[in-house]
């Protein structure tokens, strides 16, 4: 059942819009009054400590869990947990953190089965099966039984199953957990391809470096609340401090005495390797250029001068959250 008329106007333009979304298990409120809005085509990263409510939120978005309270709209249509909205289910792809498969089927038959469940007809079905197998690099395994695949391959096969019907919205819950670095990299590459294809992707992960590479926006969950939901660019701008790393061929004391003259330098620490200092610098890129120029004019033999911003993990920890990875 859709309720476009009753929904606020913002939902029509959003890939995901939730209102007062709450899920309570007995006395424990797993998701608390969440108002999430994700633009079409975005890759939205959901981060937060274990038990923050990420999985419950994703499960509700995938219709695998019923909200205690609140509403979910997917591309403007109200999400209901019955068989009244098959067209909405056709738009969703959900990959949970565990991925049970049918061991008695071959890779091809498994995908063929799900393609049929999502109403893909020939010849599109055959073409699509070929495409996704190529994307997840399992073409050479198409006739193998699923029981014979490695964990990484099974994970990729699950992703292939999730995207076989070209969903508009992809919900990925801890998709890289338990994968080795190479498998993780392969998975990241696949996500980038899907992003380029225009899918909206909501992904939860503890591997923040992956999210920083993939996401355009992030949401931070804690104790069931969505405490932060913003674009990655905005997050860096607001919360990421710039660091300058300056190396010198001379003694560090000269460099330190020179830096004391600059109010934009709020402090520094000596780095372990080499004669280098890590500065907390409040200035703009132009002001850092001026600083470099002044140091050289003051006769400091500068061997290294680079600007660095804090990564997502540091920002996350700085916000007072604890990330387990």
């Amino acid at each position, binding site marked *: 059942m859709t309720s476009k008329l009753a929904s606020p106007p913002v939902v029509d333009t959003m890939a995901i819009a939730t209102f007062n979304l709450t899920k309570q298990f007995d006395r424990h409120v797993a998701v608390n009054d969440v108002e999430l809005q994700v633009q079409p085509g975005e890759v939205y990263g959901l981060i937060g400590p274990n038990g923050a409510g990420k999985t419950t939120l994703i499960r509700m978005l995938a219709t695998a869990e*019923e909200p205690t309270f609140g509403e979910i709209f997917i591309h403007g249509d109200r999400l209901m947990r019955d068989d009244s909205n098959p067209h909405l289910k056709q738009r969703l792809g959900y990959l949970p953190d565990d991925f049970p498969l049918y061991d008695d089927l071959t890779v091809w038959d498994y995908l063929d*089965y799900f393609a049929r469940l999502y109403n893909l007809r020939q010849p599109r079905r055959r073409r699509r099966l070929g495409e996704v197998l190529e994307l997840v690099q399992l073409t050479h395994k198409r006739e193998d039984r699923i029981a014979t695949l490695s964990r990484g391959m099974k994970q990729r096969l699950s992703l292939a199953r999730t995207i076989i019907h070209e969903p508009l919205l992809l919900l990925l819950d801890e998709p890289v957990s338990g994968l080795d670095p190479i498998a993780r990299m392969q998975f990241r590459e696949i996500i980038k391809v899907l992003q380029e294809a225009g899918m909206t992707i909501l992904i939860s992960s503890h591997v923040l470096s992956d999210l920083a590479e993939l996401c355009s926006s992030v949401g931070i969950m804690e104790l069931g609340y969505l405490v932060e939901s913003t674009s990655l660019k905005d997050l860096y701008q607001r919360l990421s401090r710039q660091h300058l790393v300056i190396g010198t061929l001379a003694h560090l004391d000269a460099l330190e005495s020179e830096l004391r003259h600059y109010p934009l330098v709020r402090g520094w620490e000596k780095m372990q390797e080499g004669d280098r200092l890590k500065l907390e610098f409040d200035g703009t890129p132009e002001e850092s250029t001026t600083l470099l120029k002044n140091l050289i004019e003051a006769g400091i033999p500068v061997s290294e001068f680079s600007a660095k911003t804090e990564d997502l993990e540091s920002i996350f920890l700085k916000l007072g959250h604890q990330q387990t990875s």
Partner: protein
Amino acid sequence: MILNQWIDQLGDWNPQLFRELKGRLTVKSMALMFLVSMVGQSLVYMNFESSLPYSENSASHYCLGGSNVNLSSNYACSADAAGNVALNWPLWWAEIFLTLSLIGFFVLLLGGTYLLIQDLTKEQKQGTLNFVTLSPQSATAIALGKILGVPIWIYGCIACALPLHLWSGIRGGIPVYLILMFYVVTATCLLFFYGGALLFALVSGGGASKAWLGTGVLFYASGMTTLLIIHERIHLANVMDGVLLLNPIHMLVFLARSSPVTEKMYWFQSDSFGDMSFFGVPIVGGAAIATLSHLVIYGIGTYWFAQAFKRKFHNAHSTLITKKQSYILTILLTVFAVGFTVQEPYQYSSDYNNWLLNFTLVSICAIFYLLILIAALSPSYQSIQDWSRYHNHKPKEWIWGERSPAFWAIALNGLICFSGVAIAGMIVMEAPYRLPFFLGTVMQLLVVMLLAGIGQSMLLRKTKKRGRLATASVLAGIFLPLMVLAIEQTNPEFYAAPWFWTVTPLIAVKSASISTVIATIIGQTAAIAAMNQLIQQRIKRIGSSELRQLIDAQHQPTT
């Protein structure tokens, strides 16, 4: 290759069927099916062949022309000039046909039920079913795919035996159209029971023993009714006739009797099914009307299984049916049960005691139905908590609401049930018995409400084993009073009052004074009001906020 193409085409029609066949149907498995079926058919054939006489000096059930030599309907054999024993081949073939029918039916019913429950339980346990429920396919399409695909090995074996089955029927003198009617009825019966099996697998907890439990119960029920149909010469003239009609083996009576050798058959001699009536209308008098009756019963039953399956498939935490659906179902079942109950008591004159037997039986069936309904309509503890906290508690919500407790809905269902029973009883009984019967029915309803209240209050407890606690309490409420009265040898004719608090007040009401009955009704009503108060309080407490609970806990006196 051809097999794959065939599966591919079927898969376009039903994706679930594609999955089931892909995992099961291979050339090797098909060869095995063929082999198993052939071995089974050979065993039946050889068994019948071994029962044929080899010389004219012997006596056999299948001999022609001789005289009856004993009570087991064996006949002395005679031979022609060439020494060939004259045999009643149509009888021999007809009995092969009936044997194959029974074996085939039980293999399909029990084997299919077991496989379906086991398959769905496994999918639930592994978590693969979740992905299927999230797909845009309807629950009925998935269920149909499972029903057609999971027992495919059994279908294969039976399909291989069909030529012999048909051939033996034709040689036994049974008209082909009747055999086809039997096939249609059996197929709809299997659809009904398979639907029930899938629902059972979806709703029941427990593990690997679930398939054995479901199949075991079905084996017992179908076995008992089959024995009754094969050997008994009477129908029961009460609500149990409706249960008999759930067994399609009943159709074999018409097939056996259509054979020219019917008098010489051992089984299916029942001649009183034609007397079975529904509100006085004969419904199994002929094969065509019996087929129609079966189809209607299975059709309605399958529809309700499908409704419940649909709800549970999409949301494991939802109730089996909605409250609105429960009222419709109760009306249907009341009409069904009362229709068979108002048959003239079979062997006796229709005095109060004989009618009482019929109506007590239907009342007990109603009680068990209403108790099952408590389980079917009671939302999960979590749902009640959510409902209590986030929704208003208007009376309308209690009667129609999806997440409200089932207590008052059970009361309304009970009212529907016992109103039907009371109206029917008042019509068929003679005037002096009407008032006691009516009062007895009222007390029966009140007892059901009390039991429902006990069950509901247990379901609202915080313990995790609340389901078991509710079942145990309700069963104790049913059986303990009866056991105590039986041990004390309390005769309902002399000490009626205690019987009014059991599930069978009807048997005592005739001998009780009106003041005792009125006092009991007032007492039961007061008990229900107290129970309702208790339930309301519990619900309020469940839904109260953490802060409120903390304050309440602080104000409670320390003991």
